[in-house]
């Protein structure tokens, strides 16, 4: 994508009277890091980038905004927030719009067609991070990495993030302004992670998750980074009733992880952020993707594709499957 065009558009958008700020990606300070940029003027719009390292889902910041009580007589700032989205992020925004988490007239969505992102952790394993921020670009059949002044060609399969291998929506579902050329959606890979767990028998599955959940630190990063975890009153913070105790042991960890997975059932848009931020490398995405697949195959429902649709758990169809009911 043409960066000049991107920065020009961003500067135009933030110059509008009805736009408060723009959320985009900008270059990090180290290695393969990219950080969110909050752009308020044309000068900082020149720092924006869109590269294969922009894996982060910025839709989180739409609902993370703190709303302190206003002094008497002061009007709330009702200007719009502009946000840059990839295909998966646009699904998060669509889901937020559907759930009335945000209002359509309060956002300006700048869609970026996404040819697939790199997994920074995977990349760092093969090509250790340099101190200088690295440059990385898309090429015809993969990526070009510029690190310490030398260019390396990377094949696509080598470093493509897992969520992108499974991606079915590389182009934004909803947007006001779109940048770049639409991408031809590729054939999603088979979800081997979920299939591997499904292949085990029940007791081994329990063992498997016991091993994984035993590492959970209960830092709640997965909750905080999730664009769709935005309840003001989260059950995890609630003390009466205490659904989940704060002690870090296997039984509480399981309760927390199952509750988190279920609260995202039929809402998760598979952006893979929970997995990316997890300091204990728990494959949380497997739980989400399993439920998403169930919902897609058995109920024919896909979250985050239509802002006018009915939320899954708030509706029903008379012919929903009921083969499990006695």
């Amino acid at each position, binding site marked *: 994508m043409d960066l000049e065009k991107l920065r020009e558009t961003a500067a135009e958008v933030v110059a509008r009277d009805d736009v408060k700020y723009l959320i985009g990606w900008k270059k990090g300070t180290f290695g393969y890091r990219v950080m969110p940029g909050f752009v308020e003027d044309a000068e900082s719009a020149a720092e924006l980038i869109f590269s294969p390292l922009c894996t982060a889902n910025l839709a989180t910041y739409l609902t993370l905004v703190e709303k302190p009580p206003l002094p008497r007589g002061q009007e709330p700032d009702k200007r719009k927030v502009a946000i840059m989205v990839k295909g998966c992020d646009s699904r998060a925004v669509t889901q937020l719009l559907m759930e009335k988490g945000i209002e359509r007239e309060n956002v300006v969505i700048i869609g970026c067609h996404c040819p697939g992102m790199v997994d920074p952790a995977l990349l760092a394993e093969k090509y250790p991070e340099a101190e200088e921020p690295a440059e990385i670009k898309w090429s015809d059949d993969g990526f070009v990495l510029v690190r310490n002044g030398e260019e390396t060609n990377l094949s696509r399969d080598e470093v493509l993030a897992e969520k992108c291998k499974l991606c079915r929506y590389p182009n934004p579902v909803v947007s006001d302004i779109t940048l770049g050329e639409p991408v031809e959606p590729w054939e999603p890979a088979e979800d081997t992670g979920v299939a591997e*767990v*499904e292949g085990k028998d*029940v*007791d*081994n*599955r*329990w*063992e*498997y*998750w*016991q091993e994984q959940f035993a590492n959970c630190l209960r830092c709640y990063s997965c909750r905080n980074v999730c664009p769709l975890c935005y309840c003001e009153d989260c*059950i995890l913070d609630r003390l009466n009733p205490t*659904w989940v*105790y704060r*002690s870090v*042991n*296997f*039984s*509480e960890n*399981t*309760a927390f992880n*199952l*509750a988190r*997975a*279920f609260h995202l*059932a*039929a809402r998760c848009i598979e952006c893979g952020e929970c997995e990316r931020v997890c300091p204990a490398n728990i494959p949380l995405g497997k*739980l989400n993707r*399993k*439920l998403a697949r*169930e*919902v897609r195959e*058995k*109920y024919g429902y896909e979250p985050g594709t239509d802002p006018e649709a009915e939320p*899954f*758990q*708030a*509706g*029903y*169809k*008379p012919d*929903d*499957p*009921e083969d*499990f*009911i*006695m």
Partner: protein
Amino acid sequence: MSANQEPNIVAFLCNWCSYAGADLAGTSRIQYPHNIQVIRVMCTGRVNPLYVMNAFHQGADGVLVSGCHPGDCHYMEGNYHARRRMGLLKELLEFAGVDPRRFHMSWVSASEGHKWKEVVEKTVEDTKEAGPFEGFRRRQIDW
């Protein structure tokens, strides 16, 4: 708990059908296993999937959710909502490695005392086969 001890089963029954059905089974002197702890809710649609998880968490070996047949809900559509949620919850529990024999759902109407007996027998039998559920039980903190 040793394996031959009786299982603990928590049953969430809807007030209008299954609870009345269980009541009918009682007044008709139908004998069925006594492992069921009944929690009466106004509708199966009221059963938050967290309740089921919490029941396991607090020591249940099995959970049964029972309500009106589709179309008979006192609140018109509560059991349809429950059907979706519980179907999804069953998938999640199974994927997480909870034995599918521990979680059951059934439709029992107010006149089906005999069906209630069958449902309870099946649930108890399945839960017995699955054995005590120790893995997920909340660790009691002894202050």
